[in-house]
């Protein structure tokens, strides 16, 4: 199963530019398994972030997780103010408190412009970005969250195994 489309400029990217190892996560902000994977991925980037690249794409299961889509939209809106990863991290670090009001509180803590955020979260472009991430996930064979891809190939295991793989292959 391969990643479609490949990593491109619409993606949220952290880590080393032009890295030889590129990891993509499809995640849902309200998914408990993604929440459990978060600290492992954070640790992975702390250890290997200077040599690998990490990308997050939205895969909200919004029928099952009430706030998953709102969280994805708010994170995309934060990206427009240059704070995608700050919002991404803040949501996962406070996953148990997730609600629409709480998302706005996080935005305030991150000092996002509230007026602009309020305009941006209603933009159809943001909804389309979340939808297109989701659709790309389905076409790439994502069957649940979190799902990982390593260099464009589906990695059929969890964050612990991904960490293990990195410890073996990152030189």
């Amino acid at each position, binding site marked *: *199963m391969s990643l479609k489309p490949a990593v491109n400029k619409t993606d949220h990217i952290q880590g080393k530019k032009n890295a030889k190892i590129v990891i993509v996560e499809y995640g849902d902000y309200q998914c408990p398994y993604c929440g459990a994977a978060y600290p492992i991925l954070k640790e992975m980037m702390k250890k290997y972030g200077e040599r690998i690249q990490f990308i997050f794409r939205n895969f*909200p*299961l*919004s*029928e*099952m997780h009430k706030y998953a889509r709102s969280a994805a939209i708010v994170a995309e809106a934060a990206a427009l103010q240059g704070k995608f990863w700050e919002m991404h991290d803040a949501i996962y670090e406070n996953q148990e408190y997730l609600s629409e009001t709480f998302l706005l509180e996080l935005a305030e803590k991150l000092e996002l412009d509230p007026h602009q955020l309020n305009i941006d979260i209603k933009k159809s472009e943001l909804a389309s970005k979340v939808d297109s991430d*989701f*659709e790309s996930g*389905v*076409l*790439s*064979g*994502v*069957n*649940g969250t979190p799902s990982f891809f390593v260099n464009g190939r589906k990695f059929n295991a969890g964050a612990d195994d991904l960490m293990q793989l990195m410890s073996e292959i990152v030189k």
Partner: protein
Amino acid sequence: MLQKNDVAPDFTLFATPNQKITLSEIKGKNVILAFYPADWSPVCSDQMALYNEMLKYFKKYDAEIFGISVDSKWCHMAFSQSRNLHFPLLADFEPKGETSNKYGVYNKEEGECNRALFVIDKEGIIQWSYLSPMAVNPGADGILEALEKL
């Protein structure tokens, strides 16, 4: 297991405690059948949750999806409500596994159907089928590719 170009066997199964669905009565629509082992088991739940999010994509291809397992209509109702599912789950309950058997996806040892997908065109011909390992959620990429080709 039935394959591409086989005629999809007709069936009438409970979709709710008082409503039955007959395949041949779904006219002018493509049909996706997702046979799965059991309500409530972790992989199936993920699989059905995924399809639940995919309904608008299936609609684009003029396709309706039905989940099928040997669970009863009441079990399906509780499962469906708990997962907020917006598509029917059919009960292959009496005679147990009869429909799964017709499609060649009944697992006698387990007393459940295998995890299998069928895409049936508007003429009632199977255009794609896929048997997934029991423990693996097959996702929806294969379904979308098959619908794309119709």
